């Protein structure tokens, strides 16, 4: 592109005005549209589709990205090139500067320059004009560069967000998860070209602590073992402390449920005994889940609908539960048989303790144990390294730019014939109004008698 065309393009697309209008449009769209959506029950996936998928939002993001790149890249080049020395400020016009400070000092410009150099300033002395200029923190612009670079990284990460894969699996104590698709309770649908999260582990122990007798988890953690680098390792997994299997692949303990160990004597003649541990969605108490049972020589399908009451001290039919932790559990079970026409025929209801048999049709069902089961969430977030880098780079840039702004200091002889009169001007590029404070402070540091009220 010819340089004049590039300049026009740069002025148009990379202008500060476009930056402000884009930000303003973004704010306005969120305020009048997205925020009300969040308050009026619009489902989260729909809001996500609007903000991420609608053309006007995408246009806005595109404009902002182009604006940031076009606006900043040439400016940084120029800023870094000219950063080494103080910006020109004519010595004979310092007194007219609106933030100038008067001072008195008998030292020569060279001596003052020496003191400034000791304080970390880069100094240019003009002995003939009786003036000097100094600069420090000259790479402050790099902070701005990093901050805006992080926005570009966020955008790259945003493109990777749709490639996130999430799945859930219910694993009880002593059981393993192989990572196979059929082992998922809620199988993820990885985007094209992505595999399921690579994670395999065994739950050794699951601990759930409740606050008093309330439905309120004080602690929920699983001790798991997993293979890494040909060695078996043990780790603790919680909701807030996932176990990482790769840079963006991890598993966390997202929920709690029960697993029931049962024995099914599926034949009245005592053959075909089946023992199994099965995870059920029975928490909190009162939630009903069903177990599929194959009974008899014809393997007819039966359903056991189960509710788990973890701690019921009273005997008899009472389901007066006093705790969420497993103590003296009872199970409320109703059985049905699936008929050929697809309907279910009720076979009866029971309230039983562990070990008490339930006899139905030609089978006997006994629940032997209740275990804790963890609902593990497996997540593969390819954007994690990008977004984390963006956050770190952005925050470093933000702090660098704002807390260490470029400072410039100008000193020139004041009134003609008065060898001790000086004029000081300070400039802080991020915080222009504090330039006067800089001049006052450094005037005093240099041993000058500063006229604060001037």
């Amino acid at each position, binding site marked *: 592109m010819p340089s004049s065309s590039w300049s026009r393009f740069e002025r148009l697309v990379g202008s500060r005005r476009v930056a402000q209008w884009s930000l303003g449009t973004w704010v306005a769209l969120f305020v009048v549209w997205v925020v009300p959506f969040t308050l009026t029950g619009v489902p989260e996936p729909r809001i996500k589709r609007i903000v991420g998928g609608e053309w006007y939002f995408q246009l806005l993001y595109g404009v902002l990205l182009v604006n940031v790149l076009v606006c900043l890249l040439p400016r940084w080049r120029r800023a870094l090139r000219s950063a080494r020395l103080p910006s020109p400020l004519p010595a004979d016009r310092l007194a007219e500067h609106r933030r100038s400070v008067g001072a008195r000092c008998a030292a020569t410009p060279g001596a003052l320059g020496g003191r400034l150099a000791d304080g970390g300033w880069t100094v240019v002395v003009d002995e003939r004009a009786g003036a000097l200029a100094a600069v420090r923190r000259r790479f402050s612009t790099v902070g701005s560069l990093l901050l805006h670079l992080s926005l570009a990284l966020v955008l790259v990460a945003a493109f990777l967000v749709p490639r996130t894969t*999430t799945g859930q699996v219910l694993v009880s104590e002593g059981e393993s998860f192989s990572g196979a698709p059929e082992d998922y309770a809620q199988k993820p649908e990885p985007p094209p070209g992505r595999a399921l999260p690579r994670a395999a582990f065994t739950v050794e122990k699951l601990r759930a602590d409740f606050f008093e007798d309330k439905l309120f988890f004080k602690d929920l953690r699983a001790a798991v073992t997993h293979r890494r680098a040909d060695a078996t390792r043990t780790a603790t997994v919680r909701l807030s402390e996932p176990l990482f299997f790769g840079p963006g692949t991890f598993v966390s303990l997202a929920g709690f449920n029960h697993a029931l160990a049962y024995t099914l004597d599926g034949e009245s003649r005592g053959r075909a005994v089946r023992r199994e541990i099965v995870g059920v969605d029975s928490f909190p108490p*009162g939630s009903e889940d069903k177990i599929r049972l194959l009974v008899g020589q014809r393997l007819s399908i039966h359903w056991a609908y189960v509710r788990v009451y973890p701690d019921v001290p009273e005997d008899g039919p009472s389901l007066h539960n006093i705790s969420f932790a497993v103590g003296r559990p009872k199970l409320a079970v109703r059985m049905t048989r699936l008929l050929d026409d697809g309907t279910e025929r009720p076979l009866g209801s029971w309230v039983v303790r562990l070990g008490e048999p339930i006899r139905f049709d030609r089978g006997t069902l006994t629940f032997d144990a209740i275990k804790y089961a963890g609902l593990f969430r497996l997540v593969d977030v390819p954007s994690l390294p990008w977004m984390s880098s963006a956050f770190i780079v952005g925050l470093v840039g933000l702090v660098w730019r704002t807390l260490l702004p470029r400072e410039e200091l100008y000193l020139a002889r004041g009134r003609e014939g008065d060898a001790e009169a000086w004029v000081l001007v300070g400039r802080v590029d991020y915080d222009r109004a504090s330039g006067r404070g800089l001049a006052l402070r450094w005037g005093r540091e240099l041993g000058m008698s500063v006229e604060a009220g001037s």
Partner: protein
Amino acid sequence: MSGGWILPVLIAGYGGAAVAWVRVLGRGDPRGVARWWLTAVFAVHTAYLVARWAVVGHPPLFGTFENVLAASWALATMVLWATWRRTGWRDLAWASALPWLVILPGWGLRYPARLLPLTISERSLWVDVHVFFAWTAFDVIVFAVGTSSLVLARERWPERLTWVPEAEAVDVWLFRAVTLAFIGTSLVLATGSYYSVLLFGAWVRWEVVQVSSIVLWLALAMIVHARLFYGWGGPKLAWAVLAVLPVAVTSYWVWSVYRGTYHSFDIPLLRARDAGG
């Protein structure tokens, strides 16, 4: 110890400090009575927070009651720091923060003071850091909004507000506050988003708190750019900062009245005997 008594004490204490400050306003430094009064109330406030933390085992960040205590404590810290260090903006800090030091505990009276351990989703250093930056940013936003109000009020009634520092100095403090609020909000968003990925596998939950925080961040970015690019100052800058107030209040407090957010922690406690019918 549940400690519901602390809020009336704070309302009376900080309210009294406000009255003492108004009475000595314009009569010069050191504003002795108001300063010592505020320090005494702050000491009670701090002692209560420390004791509560020791008993319940976590910093005050769970539910509205604890958060009004944390937010008001952070505000009182800012005022005391400005006062004891005799900064040029101490009167601005008093004027900005004192109404909130009464309003926030008053708001907290609506909520139970019960001692609850942290639930599992809040047991993380990320949450502690997130909340710390949130209340720090809220602090400086309160300061910026209060200072902006005074700038505009002085335009209208210059003879009554002679104690407000000169316009240029106010602009400097205001811009620094906006910058700090921007840094704080950036940290709040970054830590919150990262933790959101760990919890849900999603960087953004499209719910009111996170969305309004993004709006707040964008609005603060706009003000920073307006100052740097176009040299905004005086009433123009003040109006821009005031426009941020509704977004900031939504972002920081909506969760205490609106339950449809992942930030709501005034959890109704279901007893085991009531579960499952």
